[in-house]
């Protein structure tokens, strides 16, 4: 897998984790059952995301910022040829098994980076 794509995946998963802690869906469970200090956790996630963002190459980081500033989702999974960022089929030329995840691609419709899930 492309290393930059792997970084993007990690960033996306951490952003998801952060969002769930702040939008209320996981907040109570994490605080009550697991004794997580929510504010500390959010700060720690922010720091980690920032650190990973610094490791993105310049071009990709610029593309990343354009998406990240306006949408919660930066990387969309592609499952059975469908981009789950916008639910449109990605073009078949790039869906070939061998090429999957070997370079950073974006969805031409919604702009998300694409991660092909096996």
């Amino acid at each position, binding site marked *: 897998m492309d290393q930059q794509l792997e970084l993007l995946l990690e960033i996306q*998963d951490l952003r998801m*984790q952060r969002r769930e802690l702040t939008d209320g869906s996981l907040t109570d469970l994490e605080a009550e059952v697991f004794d997580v200090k929510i504010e500390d956790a959010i700060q720690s996630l922010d720091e980690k995301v920032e650190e990973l963002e610094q490791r993105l190459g310049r071009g990709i980081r610029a593309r990343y910022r354009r998406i990240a500033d306006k949408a919660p989702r930066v990387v969309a999974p592609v499952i059975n040829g469908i981009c789950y960022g916008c639910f449109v089929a990605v073009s078949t030329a790039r869906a070939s098994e061998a090429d999957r995840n070997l370079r950073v691609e974006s969805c031409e419709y919604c702009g998300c980076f694409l991660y092909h899930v096996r």
Partner: protein
Amino acid sequence: MQLRELFVPSAINLDLAAETKDEALKELVSCLGLDGKSEGILYKMLKRRENLGSTGIGRGIAIPHCRSLVVTRLRVAFGRKLSGLDFKAIDEKPVRYVFLIVAPPLEVSNQYLPVLGKIAQFGKEADVPESLAELSSPEQFIELLEAKDL
């Protein structure tokens, strides 16, 4: 959806080889049948979640959990280590029973939260640690969930 329908026998390990928390996480992730790269990413995410606070909720039970793009549906696994693992649990006691829960970012049926909640509740029942200690087959694990109507 009942909890017992989510657990497949290949993801129920009553005798983990792991000697440490990290090894236990890796061993449970490897039960899910993902490719090596995805396993690595998932393990990293689980570790990051543990860094926010241990998922060891006390009385020998831990529930590591996270969402990740590398899975396409909710996956669960159960591992037991009777000699105990240092999990930095809330009560600082060794962990013997580990429930792993991973979910994709988008789920049609939104099961992640209810499943996490149900397992946490199950783990808090007084008789559960003892019942988990006595299991001798994955089938009995399923039967235990069934007896609890889970």
